[in-house]
Structures are given as C-alpha cells and as structure tokens.
C-alpha cells in the first residue's frame, strides 16, 4: 500500500471514530432517555474507542447510571468503564460508591463480585474510606459465598496496600487465618496471598498461620492426583497454591516447635524426592508446574538455612538442572545456586559444579543466562578457586555485553583483592582489567590498586616494572596512563637502574601519551613530572623545558596551567632538600573498607568521594595551616563550609583601636606584601592600636576581616572616648596589577 492509500485508511478510521463519537454526543445529550440496552451499547463503544487510544471525556454519567441497572450485562459495562476510565470528579465518586454499596448489600453474589472487583481495580482512597469496615465483614461472614470470599480477600489486599491506615486488622486476624482451612482451594489461594502481605508488616499477628499453612501444604504434596481434581494442573496438585504457601512460610524463620519443624522438613523432602521420580507427562506444562513448586521449596530451604541435608540435596538437584536442555531451567538453577553458595552448609557442594558453570559462561546463547553464571562464579569464589574464576571472568569480559561490563569489572577487582595471596597477581589482574575494559574501570578500582601498591613495599617494584611494560603498548587505555603515571611517579626509581627503563626513557614514555589524554590525566602526569624532577635530577632540564613550553604555561585549562606554573617555579627555587620533602613518597593509606564493594552494592552510577582524595587531603591539608592557628569557627564556616576538622577555637578577642587619622596608605602599603603568603597577621601597629587582618581564600572566593585592638602597651585603657571602624575600598589593587 502506498502512502496515499494509508492516509485514506487513516482518514476513514478517524471518520468512523468521530461518527461514533458524534452519535454518542447526540444521544447522550438528547432529551430522550435511553433504554438500558442502548446505553450499554454506547458506553461499550466509547470504551472501545478509548482502548484504541483516543481520549474520551464524556460518558461517565451514563456509565454510572448503568451501575444501578438490574441487568448484569449493563452493570458489567458500567463497572468496566469506570474502572478503566477512572474519574476524579467527587460527585461521580459519590454516586459510584453508592452504587457499590448497594451491590455489596444486595446478597447477589454476581453483583457483589462486580462491586468488589471494581474496588480492587480502582482502590482509591475514597473507596477505602467508604468500605474499609464492610469488606472484612463480608470476608468472614458465614453466609458469604466462596467466590465472593475470594474477591473480598484480594480486595482487602489491595486496600491494605494503598490505604493501610484505614484497615486495622485486629479483630479480623484470627478469622482470616482460619480461611486457610477452607475447603474451597480458591478461597485458600486468595487468603494465602492476603495473609502473606499482612504478615510482612506484622508477622507476630499472623504466626498462627504457620502451622495451618504447613498442614495444608503437606496434604497437597502427599495427595493422590484424584484428590484435588479441579485444582490438578497437568498431573500436578495445586501448584500455584503450593507456591503461595511456601512463600508464606518464607515470611518466618524456621519454626521453633520441634514437631512442626520435622513435619516441614518431611514435606520439603517429599517435594525434592518427587522431582527425581519419572515424570507423569512429557508436556512442558507438567514439568514447569512441578518445578515451580520445587524452586519455591528450594527458596524456602535457602531462606531457613538450617538443615544441611536439605541444602545439599537442593544443591544436587540444581546441579542436575544446570545441564538441562531447557534454557529456563538452566537459568533458574544458576540463579538459585547463587544464593546457595553463600550458605556455609552448601558452599562446598556448590563449588563442585564450577566446571559446568564455567562452561555455561562460554556456551550459553542468552546473555541473561551468562550473567547468572557470572554471578554464581562470584558467589562461589574462595581461596581455592579464586585464580581460576578470575581468569575465566577476565576472558569472558573480552566479549561481554557493554551493559554488564562495569559490574564484572567491579566483581573481578573485589575478588582479586580479597583472595590475593601474592599481590603481583592482583596488580596483573587490575592491569588486565584496564586493558580489556578500560572504559568500564571506574575510579574506585584504579584508586584501589594504587592504594594497595603504596601500602605494600613488596609489590612496588613489580608494579613499576609491569606498568612500564604495559605502557609500551601503542594504544593503551587512559586509565592505564593514570595508573602508570602515578606509580612511576612514586616508584620509578625502583626500575631506573635498568637502562631500558632509565629515567629519561620513563619520562619520554609517559610524555608520549600526554597529548592523547584528557585534562585530569594530564594533570596527574604533570604531578608525576615534578616527582621525576625530585627523583631524577638528571632529567630536570628536560622536564623543565616541557613545563616551560607555551602549551603548558598558557594552557587553556586553569588547573593544568596552574600546575605547570607552580611546578616549574618549584623546580627552580626549591633546594633539593625541600623538594625531597615536598615530594616525599606517599605514606601508606589508612586501612579502610573498600569503596568498590559499596559501589557494587549501590550500582547507581553516582560518584563517591574516593578514599584516595580523603587521604591526600589529610596528608597535605595540614601544610595549609601555617603559624596562625587562630581561626574563628563561625567566620570560616559561614563562608567556606568545610569538612576539615577545625582546631579548637582559641581565638582571643582581639580588639584593636582605631589608628589616628592622617595615616596614609603609603605607610601601610609595603606591609601588604606580607599578606601574599600569610593569611593572618598585624597590618598596622602603634602605641595605642593594633590592626590585624584575617583572611581566608577558597578557589575564587576570598574573605578579609580587619580587626582592631588596643595595643598591649597601652597604659590606661579607660581613656577611650569613642571608637568606630570602617573599611574603605581603594582602587589601589587595580593600580598595582597594571
């Protein structure tokens, strides 16, 4: 069909819709009252049009009118319309609630169900307020029909979710629990869902449901297939109810009562045994239903984590599923085994399947299955298999989906650190991570490797050598340049003896990557260069030439420019001793929890302050506090809130007095130079008076406070008649700059 024809079809469709809508308007707005049948027809059409995707803004009144009809079909359309097109008009809500109230009181199960379904589907606050007391009563009343009980239970569940405060269960609790004994399994199903939800909020109130649920479950599991005819699905007895009961049991810890516990164990063993029996049917529905119950049972076993035999049996069963021909089962087995791996009872049993899991990683065609295999390898990792698992994960990383690479990187980094006996292996692993998936190696990971190298003397030489070799690669990832720059800057001296990695070679290697890197990396490299100047005086000239070049000193980026300028200057004026002190080797980082683990848990992609920066501030931050430690906390905090701990305030209330008029700026001017390097100090002093300056700077903000005080030598403080201060801004600064 060409475009023109398609347009014609669209136009025709629109015409049909508008004709129908037009009809609706004509009829609904007309004087004649429609009979129920016509009304139903039109409301139904409106609904249909709405469901096609067109907006409907009328018909609500007619729909509400249908609610009061005595005919099921008319009522049904009315309820359907208002459930799908929820309207917030308060008059309509009032009318709707009235209709619902009437239907609930009608004692007609069909009408009651329609009303209950509407409440469950809409679940509005107004409905909750109107019917919160009514519905529990219906649920537990002796004369309520089974199907109505089912609907009432789930209706209550919905209202409890949206308006829990309106439904204090209190008096109804026991009666609701008792529904678990109902002979209608549909009622039991609905009641189990309700109790499970309520038990999550107030477990103690529903503790009594445990034994009832267990009894029910036992009966189902051991029943012959003819017992539960209506509820047998492909030869499996009440699979959904079994799953729900097992789910309810997971709201609680293992039962304290010994007989209850043994009954439950028996029940679970039966379920596990049944899985081994030959199937009654080849149909996939049969096996799915059976396995649904099995997996939920295993979930309960894992949740309780108290019966070693059960855990091991569960593990073996899952192990069989790992090689099943159905992908669904392999997937679920991998997922389930992941939780089993963390239990001390089954950890060893899980490990025996490592080859199968590694094979899954290599051969599974559904990426989500491969991902579960990765998760399982991570969960089953311990000292005995760490090397093997990390190797496999690294090789998987080479071809992994981009979406999951970051997670795998984090996991490998954590495993490598946790199980490293020999830290050279750890360094190799991280460098491999950067090589294979550099883009996905977050800051936390490469910060961590540097922290570890700094903290461990025995691996520093190896790290320097390995990083040096890795940088030889023609195209290496920027993260490698960062790591390499830092490590060579700190430990390049350890390999400088070898002519192949002499200082000049090291510098040239790093500098060859310089222009390819982003600003933060270049900044890091500049720091590495000044460290080289300290370590290797023989390359000082070469590096100074580089720092002196226009591309550094006049770099568009402020940080780079500042570093180049300052490092260059430092290299000129600092004596070797001072240089060595300033650029002393980084001290070991304090032991702290790995931020990588936290990142893996969060995995929200937001940035965290890495440990490295904190330490750096602690090490270098103290240098900023010079001789004057008198800081007023309130002043600094107001302008420059900082999380650096302030020294205890010993700020003497320095009151300076005004200097005599007539003192010109010329006297004070030379003193200003003093304040280029010093934040605080006395700017003027005579017999009567001292004036001090206190200043603080942070990035582009600065604050200067002038304080005046009586000179210490003043003999008679009481002679002051009056005192006032003021600060005059002068164009002095502008003049000076030019």
């Amino acid at each position, binding site marked *: 069909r060409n475009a023109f024809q398609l347009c014609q079809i669209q136009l025709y469709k629109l015409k049909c819709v508008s004709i129908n809508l037009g009809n609706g308007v004509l009829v609904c707005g007309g004087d004649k009252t429609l009979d129920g049948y016509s009304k139903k027809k039109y409301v*139904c059409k409106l*609904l*249909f049009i709405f*469901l096609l995707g067109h907006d409907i803004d009328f018909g609500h009144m007619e729909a509400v009118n249908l609610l009061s009809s005595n*005919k*099921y*079909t008319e009522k*049904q*359309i009315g309820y*359907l319309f208002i459930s799908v097109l929820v309207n917030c008009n308060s008059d309509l809500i009032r009318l709707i609630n009235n209709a619902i109230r009437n239907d609930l009181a009608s004692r007609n199960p*069909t009408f009651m169900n329609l009303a209950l*379904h509407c409440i*469950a*589907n809409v*679940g509005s606050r107004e409905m909750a307020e109107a019917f919160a007391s009514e519905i529990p009563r219906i649920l537990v009343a002796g004369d309520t029909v089974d*199907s109505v009980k*089912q*609907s009432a239970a*789930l*209706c209550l*569940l*919905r209202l409890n*979710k949206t308006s829990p405060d309106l439904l204090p269960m209190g008096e109804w609790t026991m009666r609701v629990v008792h529904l678990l004994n109902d002979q209608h*399994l*549909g009622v039991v*199903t*609905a009641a189990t*869902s309700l109790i499970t939800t309520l038990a999550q909020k107030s477990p103690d109130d529903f503790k009594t449901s445990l034994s009832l649920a267990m009894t029910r479950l036992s009966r189902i599991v051991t029943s012959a297939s003819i017992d539960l*005819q*209506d*509820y047998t*699905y492909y030869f499996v007895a*009440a*699979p*959904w*109810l079994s*799953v*729900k009961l097992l*789910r309810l049991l997971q709201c609680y810890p293992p039962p304290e009562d010994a007989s209850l516990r043994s009954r439950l164990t028996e029940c679970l063993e039966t379920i596990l045994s049944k899985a081994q029996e030959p199937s009654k049917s080849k149909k996939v*529905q049969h096996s*799915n*239903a059976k*396995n*649904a119950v099995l*997996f*939920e049972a295993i979930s309960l076993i894992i949740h309780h984590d108290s019966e070693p035999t059960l855990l091991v049996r569960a593990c073996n069963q899952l192990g069989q599923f790992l090689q099943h021909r159905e*992908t*669904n089962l392999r*997937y*679920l087995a991998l997922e389930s085994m992941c939780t089993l791996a963390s239990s001390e009872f089954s950890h060893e049993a899980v490990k025996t399947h490592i080859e199968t899991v590694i094979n899954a990683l290599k051969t599974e*065609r*559904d990426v*989500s*299955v491969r991902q579960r295999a990765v998760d399982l390898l991570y969960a089953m990792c311990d000292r005995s298999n760490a090397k093997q698992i990390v190797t496999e994960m690294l090789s998987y990383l080479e071809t992994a989906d981009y*979406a999951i690479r*970051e997670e795998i990187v984090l996991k490998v980094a954590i495993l490598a650190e946790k199980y490293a006996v020999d830290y050279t292996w750890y360094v190799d692993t991280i460098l491999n991570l950067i090589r294979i998936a550099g883009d996905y190696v977050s800051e936390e990971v490469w910060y961590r490797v540097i922290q570890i190298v700094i903290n461990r003397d025995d691996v520093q030489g190896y790290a320097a050598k390995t990083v040096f070799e890795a940088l030889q690669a023609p195209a290496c990832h920027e993260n490698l340049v960062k790591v390499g720059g830092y490590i060579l800057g700190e430990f390049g001296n350890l390999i400088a003896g070898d002519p192949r990695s002499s200082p000049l070679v090291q510098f040239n290697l790093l500098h060859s990557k310089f222009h390819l890197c982003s600003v933060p990396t270049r900044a890091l490299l500049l720091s590495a260069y000044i460290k080289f100047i300290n370590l290797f005086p023989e390359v000082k000239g070469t590096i100074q030439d580089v720092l002196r070049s226009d591309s550094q000193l006049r770099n568009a980026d402020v940080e780079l420019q500042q570093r180049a300028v300052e490092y260059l200057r430092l290299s000129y004026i600092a004596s070797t001793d001072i240089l060595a002190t300033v650029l002393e080797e980084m001290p070991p980082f304090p032991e702290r929890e790995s931020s990588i683990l936290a990142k893996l848990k969060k*995995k*929200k*992609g937001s940035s965290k302050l890495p440990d490295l920066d904190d330490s750096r501030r602690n090490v270098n931050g103290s240098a900023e506090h010079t001789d004057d430690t008198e800081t007023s906390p309130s002043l600094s905090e107001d302008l420059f809130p900082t999380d650096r701990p302030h020294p205890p305030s010993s700020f003497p209330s320095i009151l300076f007095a005004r200097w005599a008029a007539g003192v010109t700026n010329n006297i004070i001017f030379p003193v200003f130079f003093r304040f280029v390097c010093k934040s605080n100090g006395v700017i003027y002093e005579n017999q009567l008076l001292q004036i001090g300056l206190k200043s603080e700077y942070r990035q582009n903000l600065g604050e200067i406070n002038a304080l005046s005080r009586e000179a210490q030598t003043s003999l008679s403080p009481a002679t002051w008649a009056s005192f006032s201060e003021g600060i005059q801004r002068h164009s002095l600064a502008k003049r000076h700059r030019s």
Partner: protein
Amino acid sequence: MIRFILIQNRAGKTRLAKWYMQFDDDEKQKLIEEVHAVVTVRDAKHTNFVEVWDSLSLSFRNFKIIYRRYAGLYFCICVDVTDNNLAYLEAIHNFVEVLNEYFHNVCELDLVFNFYKVYTVVDEMFLAGEIRETSQTKVLKQLLMLQSLE
C-alpha cells in the same frame, strides 16, 4: 505481585492491558513500548523471563517480565523480581487455555471484538495483582453462568 498484564500482537498493538499499580498515562505508554521492544527480539534460545536493564541507574529494575508467545500474540505478565518465574509462566498458559475453551479456539479477533468479556476472564483469574482462581473448571463454569445472564 503482578504489576500489569499485557497482550500485544507482533506489530505492537495492545489487545489487553490490565494494570495493578498506579501509572500515569505516559508511564503506561512507555511501559507498553518497552515491553514490546524487549519481547519481540527474543527467540527460542532465550528464556521466557526478561529482567529489564535501566540504562539510567546502570542496574536492573526491580521487576521482570514473564512472557510467552502464542501465534501472533505475546502474553506478558510483569512481576516483582522475587516472584516465581515458572509459576507465572504457567499462570499465563492456564489463562490462555481458559480463553481458548471459552471462545472455542480463540484468535486475535475474538479478543478484539469481545474485549469486555476478556476483562471478565482476567478478573476471574487475577485480582489485586495476585492469582485469584486457578481451576479451569470453576472459571469456565462461572463464565458460562455469566454468559447466560445476557
């Protein structure tokens, strides 16, 4: 719990959308498109379960889609990540078998022209985000009774 049930054809047209949580109209539309995009690219080598990757938070969302394809229609149930996959997979099949019985070899057009009846079937078997009734016998009996009231 169930968050929503969708029946879509291969072209992406929605034949049934049942929501068990509050969503805006925009959110509903987005979800419908997302489900369609995710489900139509899968084939036999994939599982019947999809966990949805959120590229914003770089993690998996806390729900998953259980789906199965019947001829030209995809039946999708969106559930919490902690729910039992196989149980809901078979809940879909149970539902389809009921539809099949009720409409006598159901096809897509049956669902289109009898949309209001489909809602009735859904409400018999699912309610408030949970499974309500699983016995095909009981559901069909009820449906036939309701039909006789017409």
